[in-house]
Each structure stands twice: as structure tokens, then as C-alpha cells.
């Protein structure tokens, strides 16, 4: 404490001083409070993930007081008429109790479930924003890996929770998981018996899932979130390219008071949103599904949205993918879902390292890429999103078929086609769009913004009046990295290794089509030329850059 600090006079002030002189919190707060957080809507998506997670933890804690993860059989005698006298497990009964008898129970249950859906959705688009802006590049690769872990854990948290009420819908979901596990060659059946404590469904699974759902998975998520946020502070947040933003500074608002106040308020807005949704919109009406019984299956049995894509793979995979080896069935039509899910997670995990290797780019990046300025990455990302959407839609083929009066069989053929060609088309289209936008940026930077005003000069020539950009806007258009194709390089012995050959091929794939950023000379030449003039169109209406050459299109 410096001598100039005034003595606290109020009771609160004294208490705070007492605590501070013992814990030294003020130093920490001062240090953390000075951190700068750039302001952009997409940078708040991680916060949304965090807030919805907190809400899910709070509501979930309330539910644990009343939910009973046990399989004892009893006859329902609660207020819900269409189930009175029906035999059911204690787990299902306690869920009905929470829904119909416990004060506020149904609201909290619905908040927990809507919150969970929002949580995974927020995590997903937070991840997409990090991907499309290149925020995963050095030094943030490790935090990206932590993120991949969080993504997988959020699926697991959702799935284990979805299975707890022991209703018909969730039981059917578990049945599919059981089938997937049993499809694993050799050990599948053993793993299934181990997990379910015997033949499916058994009586152990609900209490085992409960331990996972309320203890192990949330603890792991909390630990990873802590690491994740520490990394965000240590690495500092990235920022958009803008005049004044460099690789060595962070421009934004200090955590204290601006960002913290906004963030705190934002938490309550997210809370209000989830509470509002839950007050008005029903979710997972377990009473509709009835108790789990292995024989019936309802039409429209689907998992929660984040597992939907796995369900979709199972639905669109053709039956002939199952084959026999020495009389043992290998159910590739089922295993393919596991292979794709694991493959996607591994692919996400290695992407930052892959991209750095291909571009031979080991620099630190604190300024983000505008998605158009990394056309290949953006196109790969969009292709993945489309692929994911196809699998996801595959899970709801039955509903889509009914809704659009189409044949379910045709839906499956359409999805199979899109599974392969959707991503390719998306890749090509996105890349074209990115390159087009880059050319447009170049054009605007060179000649200013089109105003749409056409002038006819006395001698008959038409010109369109262009308005030059202010330097701030121009910066965004010209100051970006654009890696070039680096062919495979020979090592010191003059040999090109196989890995290097591959790197060369990938580099070509990534960077061959490229719109170079404007050089300083080009920019100055254009400015000199544009002074006070419009943009000329020649007799055929082609752009001329003043030297008679058509501009690059």
C-alpha cells in the first residue's frame, strides 16, 4: 500500500481494506482490470457459451435435489392422468414429479434443457468464428485444442443428460448407442456388457450416466474452461485488422469497468432469454414419451440437435456397407458414424498445425484474417459446415419428407448425393466468392467507392463518379497477409523429402489462386491518377486504369 492511499472511512471500505491487506486482491484486480478486450459482436460468442454453461450448472444443481437416478419399478400415482397406474422406473417417476408437482420444477427443467441446447449451439458458433477468423493460429493453437476438448465434452454432457429421465425417447437413443458399441469388431459386445452392467438395457446404466453427467463431465468442462480463459488472458485477445491495430498492441476497452459491466449485464440478458424461452416453449415433454420399454419405438425419434449429425449418418449409410470376414459381421454402416465423428474431432485438432506447416508460417498472429482474405481456409470451413448440415438434416429426413410431401426414400438418395457433392460445390462456390470479394476490395481501394452517378462529358464520354476512401477504411482493404504458393523445397542435401512434396502440393492447393494485396506503389499511382477524376470507361465500357490495360477482374 502506498502512503498516499486514503484511509477507508465507510464500513464497506474498511471491510474491503481488511480483506485486501490480507489477500492482496486489489493488485490482481488492478492488473486484470487493465486488460484490454476488443469490441466486436463475434468476440462475445465465447461469453455466451460461458454464461449458458453457468445457467445450466445452476439449474442442474437444483434438479439434482429432486431427481432420483434409480431403476426401482413403481406404479405412477401422480397428477398426470394419461400415465396413472403405469409401471415405470423411479428415474422417470422423479422426472414427472419435478415436472408436475415440484414448485418451479418444470420451469427449471426446461431452463436446463433449453440452456443446454443453447450452450452447445453457442460453443459451436464460437468455434466457427475462431476458425473463420484464423484466431487459432500461433500462439493460440493450444487454446484451440482446449476448445476441441470442450466441444466433445459438451456433446457428452448433453447426451448423458438426455438419457437420464429413462423415457421412451432417451431409451431409444441409448439403444442406438448400444448398437454402435456392439458394432465395434471383437470387443464391442464386451464393452456394451461392461457399460450397461449386462444385457441392454439392464438396471445400471442410468446411475452410471448420472455420475458422468453431474460430476465427471461438468468437472472436466470447468477445468478446461478455466485453462481456456487463462489462455485468453495470457495470449490477449485478437483484434480485427484496422488502422491502428497491429500485431503488437490490443485496441479495445479495459476489462474494468467497461467490459466487466457489459459482460455482467450480458449474463443477465442471456439468463433472461433462457428463462423466457423456458416459460413459453415446451421442451422434451417426457410425459408424452412414456416410460422406457425396449419394444416400442416412436415415429420421429431423434436425438438432441448436436447428436443429430451422428444419427443422420446412420440413417443415410447404405446397408451394403455391412460385410462379413470369416463369418463375422463388420457393420461398417454403423461404425461409419463413429469414424466420422472421431475423424472430425481429430481433423479439428490438427488443423492449426496443418495450416502452419503448409504455409511455412511460424509467426505469431494477433490480428485476425477477414474470412475473404484466406479464401482456401474459408472455403474448407464452409464445405465442412455444409457437410455437417447434410448429415444433420439426414437425421430429420422423415420430418422433411412429410413436410414437403416427398418420398422418404428419395430424401435418402438426395442426402447421399449431397453428402459427397455438397461440400465440393460449397468449396468451389465459397472460394470464388472470396476471390471475387478480394478483387472488389482491390478495386475499391484503387478507385474509391462507386457512387452510381454517371456523368456524360461534352465530347460524349461517360464517367462514373467515384468517391475516394478515407485512410481508415482503405487500411482494412489493403493491409492483410496473403501467403504465396511455396513449391516443395530441397533440403541441404538437395533432396526433396516426401513430406515436403506433399507440403508443396497442399501449398499449391491453398495459395495458387490468389489476389495479391495492393502494393504501396500501386496505391500511390492510383491516388495520383484519381485526383479529382472519375473512373473512366472506354467506348466498350471496359475499365481502364489509365494506361490502356484492362484492370484485373
Amino acid at each position, binding site marked *: 500500500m502506498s502512503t498516499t492511499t486514503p484511509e477507508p472511512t465507510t464500513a464497506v471500505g474498511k471491510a474491503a481494506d481488511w480483506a485486501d491487506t490480507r489477500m492482496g486482491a486489489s493488485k490482481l484486480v488492478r492488473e486484470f482490470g487493465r486488460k484490454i478486450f476488443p469490441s466486436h*459482436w463475434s468476440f462475445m460468442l465465447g461469453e455466451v457459451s460461458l454464461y449458458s454453461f453457468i445457467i445450466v450448472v445452476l439449474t442442474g444443481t437444483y434438479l439434482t435435489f429432486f431427481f432420483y437416478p434409480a431403476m426401482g419399478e413403481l406404479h405412477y400415482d401422480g397428477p398426470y392422468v*394419461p400415465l396413472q397406474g403405469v409401471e415405470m422406473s423411479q428415474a422417470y417417476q422423479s422426472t414427472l414429479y419435478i415436472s408436475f408437482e415440484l414448485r418451479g420444477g418444470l420451469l427449471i427443467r426446461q431452463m436446463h434443457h*433449453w440452456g443446454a441446447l*443453447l450452450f452447445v449451439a453457442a460453443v459451436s458458433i464460437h468455434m466457427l468464428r475462431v476458425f473463420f477468423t484464423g484466431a487459432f493460429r500461433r500462439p493460440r493453437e493450444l487454446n484451440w485444442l482446449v476448445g476441441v476438448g470442450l466441444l466433445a465434452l459438451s456433446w457428452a454432457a448433453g447426451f448423458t443428460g438426455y438419457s437420464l429421465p429413462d423415457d421412451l425417447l432417451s431409451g431409444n437413443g441409448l439403444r442406438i448407442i448400444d448398437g454402435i458399441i456392439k458394432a465395434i469388431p471383437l470387443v464391442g459386445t464386451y464393452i456394451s456388457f461392461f457399460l450397461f452392467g449386462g444385457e441392454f438395457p439392464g438396471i445400471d446404466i442410468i446411475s452410471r450416466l448420472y455420475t458422468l453427467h453431474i460430476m465427471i463431465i461438468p468437472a472436466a468442462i470447468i477445468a478446461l474452461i478455466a485453462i481456456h480463459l487463462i489462455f485468453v488472458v495470457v495470449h490477449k485477445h485478437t483484434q480485427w485488422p484496422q488502422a491502428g491495430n497491429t500485431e503488437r498492441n490490443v485496441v479495445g476497452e479495459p476489462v474494468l469497468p467497461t467490459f466487466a459491466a457489459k459482460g455482467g449485464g*450480458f449474463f443477465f440478458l442471456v439468463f433472461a432469454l433462457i428463462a423466457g424461452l423456458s416459460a413459453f416453449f415446451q421442451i422434451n415433454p417426457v410425459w408424452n414419451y412414456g416410460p422406457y420399454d425396449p419394444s416400442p419405438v*416412436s415415429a420421429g425419434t431423434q*436425438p438432441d440437435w448436436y447428436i443429430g449429425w451422428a444419427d443422420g449418418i446412420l440413417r443415410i449409410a447404405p446397408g451394403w456397407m455391412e460385410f462379413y470376414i470369416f463369418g463375422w459381421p463388420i457393420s461398417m454402416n454403423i461404425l461409419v458414424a463413429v469414424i466420422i465423428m472421431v475423424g472430425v474431432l481429430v481433423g479439428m485438432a490438427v488443423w492449426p498445425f496443418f495450416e502452419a506447416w503448409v504455409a511455412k508460417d511460424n509467426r505469431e498472429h494477433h490480428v485476425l484474417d477477414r474470412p475473404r482474405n484466406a479464401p482456401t481456409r474459408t472455403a474448407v470451413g464452409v464445405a465442412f459446415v455444409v457437410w455437417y448440415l447434410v448429415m444433420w438434416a439426414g437425421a430429420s429426413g422423415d*420430418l422433411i*419428407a412429410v413436410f414437403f410431401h416427398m*418420398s422418404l426414400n428419395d430424401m435418402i438418395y438426395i442426402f447421399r448425393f449431397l453428402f459427397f457433392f455438397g461440400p465440393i460445390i460449397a468449396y468451389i462456390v465459397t472460394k470464388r466468392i472470396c476471390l471475387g470479394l478480394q478483387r472488389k476490395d482491390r478495386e475499391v481501394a484503387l478507385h474509391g467507392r462507386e457512387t452510381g452517378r454517371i456523368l456524360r462529358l461534352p465530347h460524349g464520354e461517360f464517367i462514373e463518379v467515384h468517391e475516394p476512401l478515407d485512410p481508415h477504411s482503405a487500411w482494412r482493404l489493403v493491409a492483410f497477409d496473403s501467403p504465396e504458393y511455396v513449391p516443395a523445397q530441397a533440403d541441404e542435401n538437395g533432396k526433396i523429402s516426401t513430406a515436403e512434396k506433399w507440403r508443396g502440393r497442399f501449398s499449391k492447393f491453398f495459395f495458387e489462386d490468389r489476389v495479391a494485396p495492393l502494393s504501396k506503389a500501386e496505391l500511390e499511382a492510383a491516388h495520383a491518377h484519381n485526383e479529382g477524376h472519375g473512373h473512366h470507361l472506354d467506348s466498350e465500357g471496359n475499365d481502364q486504369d489509365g494506361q490502356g490495360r484492362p484492370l484485373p477482374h
Partner: protein
Amino acid sequence: MALAVLLLLGLLLTGGAYAMFTNSASANAQQVSAQDIAEGEKLFVANCATCHGMNAEGSENGPSLIGVGAAAVDFQVGTGRMPLQMHGPQAARKAPQFNEEETAQLAAYVASLAPGPAIPDDEYLDPALGDPAAGGGLFRTNCAMCHNVVGSGGALTRGKYAPSLSGVSERHIYEAMQTGPQNMPKFNDASLTPEEKRDIIAYLDEINTMTAPGGFKLGSLGPVAEGLFIWFFGLGAVIGLTVWLSARAK
């Protein structure tokens, strides 16, 4: 007291006899006159014979109706499925083309051709007499795989579908089970007794008339509807908030 017991016994007995009578294939509870049959035949020749043949013997455009009974006609015509408008994967429900009386006449005519399931008696259609919980169990095992647990409907192969069951009258529910229209299996009295059919009716009545405990039902379509909702409205609202919060004060 004794009187009451006697009365009850009497009621039960007559009720039972009545049920036996109405369920024996040919007879019909509603009084059917020869005139009804004659009127029915006229209507049939004018509206149905092109597909089902002059004597309901069937043609390449429609199956024989001999022996389908009054119940099938009452269901098909009463739900507007017949007369068929166009051939497709499945005849869809539409506004009925004939009034109650004409429908009854058509049914009487087809029933007069050969014995078949009769129009069910009111006693088996009253939801108040059924047990909705038992009906729910039966519905989940026998019907939910096509119609969804709460009867929201679902897809079958090649453009066929099991329709939503909300707003279907008790009589038509019963007749659907009894006659198995088109791609729906038949549930005769051996597989689902008339009392069990009534339990199912009671269940459907219960869930269709109750207010959803949790708010708007989103079509009772399950997790797909919920997922779309959270992406479009939940996340949409959240992104709106982020944009609002990060907008610079201008």
C-alpha cells in the same frame, strides 16, 4: 341399494348383448331401410362406380368393396378420402364431399353387399368410459411407430405417411383401427378388443384436449423442432444481443 345393483346388472347385461349384436359382422346399430340402400346405390353408381365397378366388384382403378363393411365406407367417405381425387402414394384426408345422410346411405349400400365391419357403437366411442393410461400404453406399442407417441404423424416409405391424429373424430379413429385404411394395418377385435380401442380413443382425447404443461408445443415433433428453434430463435436472439451490446454509441 339392491335396486341399484339390479339396475347396474341389467344395464351391463343389455349393454353386453347390445355389443355382441353390433359387433356381429352384418348387423348395423343404425336402422337401415331398404330405401337407404337404394339411395346409396344411386350415389354409388354416380360417384364411385368408375373406380370400384358398377356392383362394387372392383376395377383396375379401385379395389372391390364387397365385404369391406359400413365402417370402411364411413371412414373413407366421412374423412373425405373417397371419392378419390387423384392417384398418388396415398389418399389424403380432405373436406368430405357427402353429408352425414348420404354417407350413411353409401355405407348401407356397401354393407348390404356382403357382411363386414359395421359402424361402431357409441358405447365404444365415449372417451369418458375408457382408461387413457392403458390406452397410452397400447398406443405406444401399436401405433406410435407410425403416428408418433402423441399422434403428431410420421413418414412411411415412398411418400406414404401416417397422418396427424389431432382433430380426428372418435368414430373415425375406431374405424381406422377396425378397417386399416390403405397403408395402415388392420387391428381386428382379436388384436385390440373394442374396450382397448376405446382406451386408445380416451388417450388421444386426453392428450389432444389438455393444455401443454410446458408452453407452446412446437408441433410436438420432438428434438428436431427444438433444435431448429434454438438455432433460429435462441441463437438468433443472442446474436442480436451481442450486436446491440458491441455497437458503438454514436
